[in-house]
């Protein structure tokens, strides 16, 4: 089957939804397809808890927000993009307000803000601890107002169509029927989210498997800065469910087994509210040095909220309380929560400029799948939902402008037939002796051991070898289910394939970068090295593994200085 639209947006998370609205606002004449592998309100963005950063009040300033972001990023962020970002973010907050988002309020009815790690002003706007949930629902509901947004829910993108250096559309499987659909379009926006399920201990939803990144990568679009993966300090032990940074923003403490607030020793000024990479490393150090609290699920650190009192916890952190009770059997009002650093955010992604344009004409990327780079080597909490909103809009508008000025070109039938053959003749129901589930499990183990918070050259090289081995084994993968309708077995196998390619890119970038910066910390190179490494990594796909190139970081106002908190 074949359908055509002016713009095809892949991904119904915050970024994709925002892009759809922006494009629809640009012109009523544009027909916009919104494609996602889950229903939009089931995207990963609903998991975001803490909040969204924006400069709204007296005393705060754009420069301050930008500086916090750049410093948090360990100076790897592109500063022109950051400056644009901080200016646009407040408007997005107000738009969501006008569209019905139940932002938490102050007593006089204005939008409230809270403290967040690495932000030197209380500038995080929030909706209790369900920020992402409410944002996604608000945007989704808003899309219903535009007749020119056509949703394709539960369609799994398998490939991009690029001809003559320009995007022509995408190919996706309709899960319900198992049919393959070719979407022809003048412009394609990728908003498929991060790649967090590369890791085993992670806060991510099961669906976050980096599909968009891997597909673009295979189509020779470079990936940027893939070695930078954020570890959030506080993942619930054992499930990895996020205990939001707002727990600390609202005044929670981190304690080791002696009950000591150990952050005193690592970041005396900002304490628990230092940026994530700093806190996560400090916690890991405590654990490695034997000051973690032992449990049947390994050592952990205590996140202590007991002094906040029931009323405050109920009002500001209701979801956290519910989750701690349901998933760990612990009531944070009475006992500290067991936590450990956990894989949380993909700073890297598809290479774009600050207008969300990839090197391929008509192909845009936005949200977590993209690396515009405002997060550099380490993202600040609550900057990512803000990024999805700001740059979702940018992508939508740019794609709309482009679509209005170009003609649709039809895609050759051969391309469709080839993809059909690849999927239904060669992949579906194939027999082999490797289970995709086993490969995924082993991949997670490699990532969790070799590419975790503390990295070193030898460990990473070992890990890289193992990834290649897994890739080899994947060629022989078995797909037990050979039916067409809602074949989750096949989809899983696809996702594992995507993740293997991404793991390779992460590993290659990490091994090459012989310095420590932001979230990328090497025991064998513990210092930042601006002379040689103040630059972005670009990984290009080749059949023999990633080829790396480097491009400079854009610096406008802020020269790199030592990062102290």
């Amino acid at each position, binding site marked *: 089957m074949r359908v055509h639209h002016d713009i095809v947006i892949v991904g119904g998370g915050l970024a994709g939804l925002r892009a759809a609205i922006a494009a629809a606002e640009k012109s009523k004449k544009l027909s916009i397809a919104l494609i996602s592998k889950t229903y939009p*309100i089931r995207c*990963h963005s609903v*998991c975001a808890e803490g909040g969204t950063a924006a400069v709204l009040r007296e005393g705060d300033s754009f420069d301050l927000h930008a500086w916090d972001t750049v410093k948090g990023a360990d100076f790897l962020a592109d500063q022109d993009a950051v400056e644009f970002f901080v200016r646009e973010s407040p408007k997005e907050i107000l738009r969501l307000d006008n569209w019905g988002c139940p932002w938490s309020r102050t007593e006089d009815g*204005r939008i409230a803000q809270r403290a967040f790690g690495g932000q030197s002003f209380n500038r995080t706007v929030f909706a209790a601890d369900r920020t992402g949930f409410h944002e996604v629902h608000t945007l989704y509901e808003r899309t219903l107002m535009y007749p020119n947004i056509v949703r394709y829910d539960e369609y799994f993108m398998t490939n991009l169509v690029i001809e003559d250096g320009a995007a022509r559309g995408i190919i996706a499987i309709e899960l319900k029927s198992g049919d393959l659909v070719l979407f022809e379009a003048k412009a394609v926006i990728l908003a498929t989210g991060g790649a967090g399920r590369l890791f085993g201990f992670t806060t991510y939803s099961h669906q976050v498997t980096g599909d968009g990144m891997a597909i673009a990568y295979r189509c020779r679009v470079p990936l940027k800065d893939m070695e930078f993966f954020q570890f959030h300090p506080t993942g619930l032990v054992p499930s990895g469910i996020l205990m939001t940074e707002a727990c600390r923003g609202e005044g929670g403490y981190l304690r080791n087994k002696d009950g000591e607030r150990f952050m005193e020793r690592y970041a005396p000024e900002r304490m628990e509210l230092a940026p994530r990479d700093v806190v996560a490393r400090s916690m890991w150090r405590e654990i490695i040095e034997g000051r973690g609290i032992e449990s049947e699920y390994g050592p952990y650190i205590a996140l202590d909220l007991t002094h906040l009192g029931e009323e405050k916890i109920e009002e500001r952190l209701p979801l956290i309380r519910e989750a701690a009770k349901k998933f760990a059997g612990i009531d944070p009002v009475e006992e500290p929560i067991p936590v450990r650093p956990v894989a949380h955010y993909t700073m890297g992604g598809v290479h774009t400029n600050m207008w969300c344009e990839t090197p391929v004409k008509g192909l845009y990327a936005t949200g977590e799948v993209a690396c515009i780079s405002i997060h550099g080597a380490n993202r600040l909490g609550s900057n990512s939902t803000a990024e999805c909103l700001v740059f979702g809009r940018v992508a939508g508008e740019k794609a709309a402008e482009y679509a209005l000025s170009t003609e649709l070109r039809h895609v050759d039938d051969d391309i469709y037939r080839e993809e059909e053959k690849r999927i239904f003749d060669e992949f579906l129901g194939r027999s082999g002796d490797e289970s995709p589930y086993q490969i995924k499990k082993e991949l997670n183990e490699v990532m969790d051991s070799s590419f975790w918070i503390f990295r070193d050259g030898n460990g990473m090289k070992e890990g890289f070898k193992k990834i290649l081995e897994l890739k080899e084994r994947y060629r022989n993968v078995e797909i037990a*289910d050979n039916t067409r309708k809602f074949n989750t077995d096949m989809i899983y196998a696809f996702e594992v394939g995507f993740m293997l390619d991404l793991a390779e890119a992460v590993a290659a970038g990490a091994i090459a970068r012989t310095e420590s910066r932001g979230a990328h910390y090497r025991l064998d190179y513990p210092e930042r090295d601006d002379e040689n490494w103040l630059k972005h990594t670009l990984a290009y796909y080749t059949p023999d593994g990633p080829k790396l190139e480097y491009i400079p970081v854009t610096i406008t106002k802020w020269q790199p200085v030592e990062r102290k908190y």
Partner: protein
Amino acid sequence: MKVIFNIRRFDGEKDYWQSFAVPVFRGMTLLEGLFYIKENLDGSLAFRASCRMGVCGSCAVKVNGKPVLACETQISSVNSSKLDIEPIDNFRVIKDLVTDFEGFFRKHEAVKPYLIRNDDNYENPVELIQTPKQMKSYYTFSLCIKCGACYSVCPAAATRSDYLGPAAITAAWRFIADSRDEGKEERYEAVCGDNGVWRCHFAAECSEVCPKKVEPAKAVQKMRIRTALHAIKKVIL
């Protein structure tokens, strides 16, 4: 310890039960059990899941007759060494535990579940004032995750497949109760039809099963009164 997962399966043609023995550890959720089966025993088992923390609404299934979110149900809490797991009712089954939500979302769309304002300004939005108290009057109703549990137990929905259902009507009420909204009339019209609020006869099972305690039955009853008043007003004026 092993627990028997007795799963009702459907492959597009055949409908049958299949049992799996799942080794259970302390704190294990139903969803982890389903993943255990998929990863180790039968890869073809189909179910939906994503967030595994009870906010995305993907994973509602029926366990021993009652709809629950698989991801936030502890296996031990079901208190039984054999679990009958079925797809939720009132939805067409696509495969195994996966049901068709198309119609459910269409009904949600039909009630205009978005803030309607006369001064909608895309380019230059302004901050609207809403006190915490005003927010409280609708906030619980905004917590619906659209998992379909309420709809699956609703006898009115069982009788008529075009009934809007608890979730959609709750969505309508959530916006009507929002102090920022100016689209009440349009929404009364949307829910007062033959397939709307009058179909409900307060079995109130929706409020019993809602995993997020949204209290759809309450929203529907509030909606009924307002809709009734609206209808009377229309006749008189």
